[in-house]
């Protein structure tokens, strides 16, 4: 059965391979690097002209970074921040994803609990910090809970939205082939929702970082947030910038990591969407 379609298919895989040469383009990483260099250089040139009390500049921050690393202040703060950050974030992912799946799939659960998730997402949960301190003290536990609370809702809501966006016709395919509820969930709903879950996890990183700094500001002052506060209080602007930039770099790296994982677990998604643009 040779047909038009078949010919198109076999030609592409046999004789045309050598002919396909994509036009060379400036790689995206190079553009990003150049942009970083230009911004940093501009900052370095104009930064020193401002009173060091109000602002700092790259070479000064780098010097402070080195000093704080050697003295052990920065590594200690980093480790102390990372513990509640990772615990809270992972807990939010572990509970938020299944919660979103259940809310999206079962109308009764949606009606019973959806309202709390929406409320939790739109309430400024920071307002609960004084109460949380009474419940969980000032140490690791309360910080983890704050990070968990702020991260759980975006992860859960994204997953939930994703389930509701699963095309009905794909679920029909499962039904027509007599798939069980659990097979439909695992083989159709879950893969279709994966891109939404990953988007939720990406948003969650931003939320978790904010939650981490807020927790360190408002509960026992410690970690990277604590370094920001104590440096600011003693007017060491350059030293204040060090943890801010560390957190920024961390958030960017983690976001990138989620994208890498997404391309691993949902490769079809990035193939379908032309994410790179023109």
């Amino acid at each position, binding site marked *: *059965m*040779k*047909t*038009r*379609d*078949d010919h*198109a*298919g*076999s030609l592409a*895989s046999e004789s045309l391979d050598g002919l396909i040469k994509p036009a060379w383009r400036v790689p995206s990483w190079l553009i990003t690097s150049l942009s970083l260099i230009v911004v940093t250089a501009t900052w370095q040139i104009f930064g020193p002209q401002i009173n060091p009390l109000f602002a700092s500049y790259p070479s000064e921050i780098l010097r402070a970074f080195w000093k704080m690393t050697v003295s052990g202040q920065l590594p200690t703060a980093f480790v102390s921040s990372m513990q509640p950050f990772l615990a809270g974030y992972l807990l939010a992912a572990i509970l938020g994803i299944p919660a979103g799946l259940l809310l999206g799939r079962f109308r009764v659960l949606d009606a019973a609990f959806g309202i709390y998730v929406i409320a939790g997402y739109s309430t400024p949960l920071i307002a609960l910090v004084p109460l949380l301190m009474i419940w969980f003290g000032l140490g690791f536990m309360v910080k983890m809970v704050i990070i968990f609370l702020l991260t759980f809702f975006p992860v859960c809501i994204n997953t939930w939205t994703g389930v509701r966006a699963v*095309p009905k*016709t*794909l679920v*029909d*395919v*499962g*039904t*027509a*082939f*007599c*798939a069980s509820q659990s*097979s439909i969930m695992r*083989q*159709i709903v879950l*893969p*279709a929702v*994966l891109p939404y879950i990953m988007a939720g996890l990406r948003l969650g990183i931003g939320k978790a970082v904010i939650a981490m700094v807020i927790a360190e500001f408002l509960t026992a002052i410690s970690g990277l947030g604590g370094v920001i506060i104590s440096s600011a209080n003693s007017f060491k602007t350059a030293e204040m910038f060090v943890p801010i930039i560390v957190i920024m770099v961390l958030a960017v790296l983690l976001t990138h990591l989620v994208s890498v994982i997404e391309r691993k677990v*949902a490769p*079809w998604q990035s*193939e*379908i969407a032309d994410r790179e643009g023109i």
Partner: protein
Amino acid sequence: MSHVQLKDVSKIFGLKVDGRMQITRALNGVTFDIEQGEIVALAGPSGCGKTTALRIIMGLESATTGSVLVGNKEIVGCGHDRGMVFQHAELLPWKSVLDNVKFGLAMKGIPKPEADATASRYVDLVGLSHAKDRRPHQLSGGMKQRVGIARALAIDPAVLLMDEPFGALDSQTRETLQMELLSIHERTHKTIVFVTHDLDEAVLLADRVVVMHAGQVREIISIDIGRPRRDIRAIQTNPEFMRKRMAIWETLHDATPHADPVPEMRPT
């Protein structure tokens, strides 16, 4: 013995329009039989209930009243005795061609090694072995629908149900697939029920055309063109083809007394 029987099937939908419930009667006392190995077309304008009828036979929807029998057993919900081909193929985008075909087999509980072999055979049958590892977005519309057909056939259903399977394809690809469907039918003698709004397609493929309008069967028209049907040109110039095409058109035209009620169905 009739293979598929619809007995007085009605379907009523509640449709919420501007906050008020409107009752829509999608099917109203639909009764017809389909013989073993027969190809039957459900034809009619949009909204005539033909797709609803097919979905009820598949078990994707339940009839409000009446019953559907497949092989003398009343159906309740889905069943591996029926295989469905969807209008836009509806392949799972994260699965390769081969894995899409294997999906139905896995749901039927076929053990993996056997499912692998069967899926390969059906991917072969629809002429896609060179593309078996591609994902759906790497396929043309025609190739996608071939996978849809392979997926439905792989579970070896007694009845193949197809919902406007070639409606979204360009005319050349459509003709190719129509011919392939006829050739598959020649080899497997499956009972095939398909929905179409294309009168040419209905007469070309079917033994009988169930002409529907407003949720009711208007007429069942037999197409007396012998099988095997292999030459599309010869069939289309056959006087029987033109006669039956006209007969269907007139049935639909009579059903709707307004000037131009079924714009998608005109005689050429």
